[in-house]
């Protein structure tokens, strides 16, 4: 059976694409955090000065998201088909909320990614219409304008909560899928993954919340 049909092969693809996206998420967070030291505009300009590389990155990320989501949905459908009848009583000893909601947090992330690109990348939504066409323009002002709306802040924080849950299970899962676990490393990777997941939530969440609270204005 070919790698892309096999159970482990597809999981490895998901794990690698997922983990590369985690790397991106962490780097993106570091970049965004420059807002707290007043450097986000120059950070944005630096990024855009990379010219065609920006598009190479974007296409690579797109390929990763699509591969990951495609196999995530496929594998989940197979798993459901493998369990046609549920138990009347099902006491689970180990399965976590994060683990069993991977498909739902994943699909939430897919919706968020589309919205986020329409919002701050393409600037199609009404709150940032004034910034459309500027590349990159005054990113700081754009963020402050946008996150002065409670609903927008809520959507971003909720999406980061979904990401946090996804990574709560996902990061340790990556190490196991790649076969890098031993009896003693598994609990360590599990703690590491949960820590990264919480840092991602707090880090990303702090920006819109700080703006809404008037700490950044």
């Amino acid at each position: 059976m070919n790698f892309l049909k096999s159970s482990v092969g597809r999981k490895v693809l998901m794990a690698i694409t997922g983990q590369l996206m985690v790397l991106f998420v962490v780097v993106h967070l570091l970049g965004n955090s420059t807002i707290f030291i007043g450097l986000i505009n120059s950070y944005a300009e630096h990024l855009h000065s990379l010219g065609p590389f920006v598009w190479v990155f974007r296409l690579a990320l797109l390929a990763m998201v699509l591969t990951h989501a495609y196999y995530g949905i496929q594998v989940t459908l197979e798993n459901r088909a493998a369990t046609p009848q549920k138990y009347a009583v099902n006491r689970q000893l180990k399965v976590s909320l994060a683990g069993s909601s991977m498909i739902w947090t994943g699909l939430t992330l897919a919706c968020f990614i589309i919205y986020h690109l329409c919002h701050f990348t393409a600037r199609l939504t009404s709150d940032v219409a004034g910034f459309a066409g500027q590349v990159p323009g005054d990113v700081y002002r754009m963020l402050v304008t946008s996150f002065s709306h409670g609903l927008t802040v809520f959507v971003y924080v909720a999406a980061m909560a979904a990401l946090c849950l996804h990574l709560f299970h996902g990061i340790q899962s990556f190490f196991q899928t790649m076969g890098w676990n031993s009896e003693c490393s598994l609990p360590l990777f599990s703690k590491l993954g949960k820590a990264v997941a919480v840092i991602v939530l707090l880090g990303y969440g702090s920006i819109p919340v700080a703006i809404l609270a008037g700490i950044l204005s």
Partner: protein
Amino acid sequence: MSSHNEHKSMTLTLIVWRQKNATAQGKFDTYTAKGITEHHSFLEMLDVVNEDLIKGGKEPIMFDHDCREGICGMCSQVVNGVPHGGQERTTVCQLHMRKFKDGDTIYIEPWRARAFPIVRDLIVDRTALDTIIQAGGFTSCHTGGIPDGNAILISKPDADYAMDAAECIGCGACAAACPNSAAMLFTSAKVAQLAALPQGKPEASVRVKKMLDAHKECGFGNCSNHYECQAACPKGINVKFIAKLNREYLKAQFA
């Protein structure tokens, strides 16, 4: 053994899955188990209920069992939502009624997975596990003279590792517990055991691929790394063997 326990007898309510055959519609029936002592094993408790049923001219509750000492892997019941009942490293035949209290209600269900069709009541067909082993869970060897016991040296850590994996009794509780019905713990135990030993190494890459193919073709799901299997496994097979299987599979891509 304290003397007052000897007189204690429990009455329990059992809610048991009854199903005539693979295609029939199954349903839960309720039974009362009377005169159960804390020294009865779970299966002996069912024996007591079945004797009453037979005396009353009714069909006894069918369940799989053989050794009743936790080594054959035949017993297979989901007790109150956990395969083998949830006592650590214990098969359901070794689960004792002292774990229950007078008046308890106990749900008893068969393994549920597409790959394990129900034969009758609590008995499921676990041929799929044999199919996976037949696909590669062995070492090919030529017959001949008796090999010299010391001709192939195996280090103590390797031998221990292989023995830990070899503890699997093939009961299928891992797949029954898995929310995806993946029998990955079972498959990985054999892959890891043989891959750790010099006798198993030559066929390691063919073995892991063939066993994984068979696993999928039998209708088991994919592992999502929930580790529910390890918690339910009566032999405490560790999920590090699944990591080993993944490693072996990746290595096999380059072999």
